């Protein structure tokens, strides 16, 4: 897999450098543009790691909507950042401590890309890929027998495993994810809508 490794390393290097540049940029509009570039690069990283859905979302949301929102906010707040002193030591100590704790945890982790790690070889993810999960019979006797004796529950209707996970197996999470978005919209109306236009 040398090609994967090479592309991955180059992309990760670019992402990291863009992230540092976005944080360090004095001009907030510049920082916003760097954030947008950062999100696009991150989308590439995820495409390279075979998480197409996440890459798509990051490209649409991180590079698109977030940038629009940031620029919209900058129109109101101005794009100059006040100069600050070089290093904020308490923050640096907190950051280094957090990083140390996180790195301590990575030492015992399964190898990156391991198909036999506990997460990847678990029956849960295997079940999601084979789409061979049963339903629990309920009090009224529904689901007492399977629609098919073996194999794919969806009869091939849902080839995208991720979609099956987010809107069927774990639809409850997704429902509340949509509610989070609803709440964000309501908060924007609460905070920013002008008085006469309120619904």
């Amino acid at each position: 897999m040398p090609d994967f490794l090479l592309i991955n390393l180059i992309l990760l290097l670019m992402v990291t450098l863009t992230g540092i540049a976005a944080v360090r940029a004095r001009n907030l509009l510049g920082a916003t543009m760097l954030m947008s570039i950062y999100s696009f690069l991150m989308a590439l990283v995820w495409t390279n790691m075979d998480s197409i859905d996440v890459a798509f979302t990051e490209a649409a949301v991180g590079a698109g909507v977030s940038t629009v929102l940031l620029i919209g906010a900058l129109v109101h707040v101005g794009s100059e950042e006040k100069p600050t002193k070089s290093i904020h030591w308490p923050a640096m100590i907190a950051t280094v401590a957090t990083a140390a704790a996180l790195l301590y945890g990575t030492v015992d982790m399964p190898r990156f890309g391991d198909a036999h790690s506990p997460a990847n070889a678990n029956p849960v993810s295997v079940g999601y890929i084979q789409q061979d999960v049963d339903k629990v019979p309920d009090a009224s006797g529904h689901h007492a027998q399977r629609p098919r004796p073996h194999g794919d529950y969806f009869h091939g209707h849902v080839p995208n495993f991720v979609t099956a996970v987010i809107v069927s197996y774990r639809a409850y999470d997704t429902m509340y994810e949509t509610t989070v978005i609803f709440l964000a919209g309501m908060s924007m109306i609460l905070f920013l809508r002008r008085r006469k236009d309120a619904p």
Partner: protein
Amino acid sequence: MIRDNLPVLLIVIPLLAGLVAPFMRRGTAAWAWVALVSWLVLAAAVALLQQVLAAPDPIRYPMGSWKAPWSIELRVDALNGFVALIVSSIGAIVTFAARASVEREISADRQHIFWGVWMLCIGGLLGITLTGDAFNVYVMLEIASISMYALIAMGRDRDRRALPATINYVMLGSIGACFILLGIGYLYMVTGTLNMVDMAERLQALQARWAAGDLAYRRTVLAGYGFLMAGFAIKLALFPLHGWMPNAYTYAPSAVSALLSATATKVGAYIAFRFMFTILGTTFCFRTMRSGEVLVVCGVLATLAGSYFAIRQNNVKRLLAYSSVGQIGYIAIGLGLGNAAGLQGSIIHLFNHAMMKSGLFLAVAAVVLRTGGADLRNLRGIGRRMPLTAAAILAGGLALIGMPFTAGFVSKWYLVAGALQQNAFVPALAVIGGSLLAAVYVWRLVETAYVQDPQPGTDVGREPLSIVLPAWLLIGAAIYVGVDANMTSALSEAAVRALGVLP
């Protein structure tokens, strides 16, 4: 059919109601709708708790009927059911009381949206309480947090300082949520499942391997646990990480302070209980990680420092917020002791503190409504002008101190008993010392209300009974469980049994 679906009804009813409420166009209509629904939710919570106590095993509800580790399931045992009862009863009573206060403090054209967000906040808190899936905890936490940000920021109609208070909470709360997500990720990485029961079984198997000398994935689990607890400590406002709380509760609308002080931190405490006892297990938390000692130290410091800071405040809402920091210290002490009596004290205190604190905040909301502010000077002469309100503050204050025949006494009794069982004298002394400090700040409130003369030239008018009577309902409940502790001690015993500490 309703009996089989009670757990999900408890979550879906607030969701649907909260989605509809913003489109009622008038604040009062939205309030009436939300108040009605919150009583319905309370009824469902009571029925669910009865069902749980009658059933031998926890009630499990797989979403979408998918088999358990693949689906998200709700899992309700005595502890869940009890916390859901706390959240929904506070939600019902405070919603009922909040109308006058909200109409005064929030501009009229935003109230209908405010009530929708309010309902979703209650729904999110119930969602955290009932879920049996680790990642779902994070999603529900975000529902509750984002609605809390919106609710707290609505205080800016009265005081612009609500805005910086909220943005601080947004930053700290988001970092806390990220820590929780990191912790869940570390645990997912070594177990491969997100279902709490499944995760617990796999972690037990892993711990058996460690005991046999094979230290596979050990450091990953240790780091993951550390991040989870750090995240919960932020959400719970445990002492060194309580920074967001005083300002948020001070500048939030009074009704919001009453709701959040009683529910948000309690749910944070519950989820720490759940992860420590159900998922990782007592051996891991108390032997391998020594988190008992850490929690007791934080709890002792919180009790003393919180109460000390409370004494120095001149704003009643801020005083009560620091008092909450101290009271959360008691919960942490009981959790850190880890024996049956300590845990029981902790769980009883969840209930007691919710009742007392939201009762007190409601009484303060009545004062704000009539005098226009929550400073200590607004309290002057309240004893004569608003006798019921002042009496509510007095009774709630006595319960906070932990006088005999009030709720605080029962939980502190259990906590001291739990500490003495382990020959831990420092926490026992801290519980008593915290009560003494509480007596000082409660005395400041009572002295201002009853002894000092009212500010001349101000007329407060009639007491707002729509707020004061619900406040008395909450404080009355706090006093009732102090006199007759059978209900709470039986429930907490069942809850401790569900945690697996008692046989």
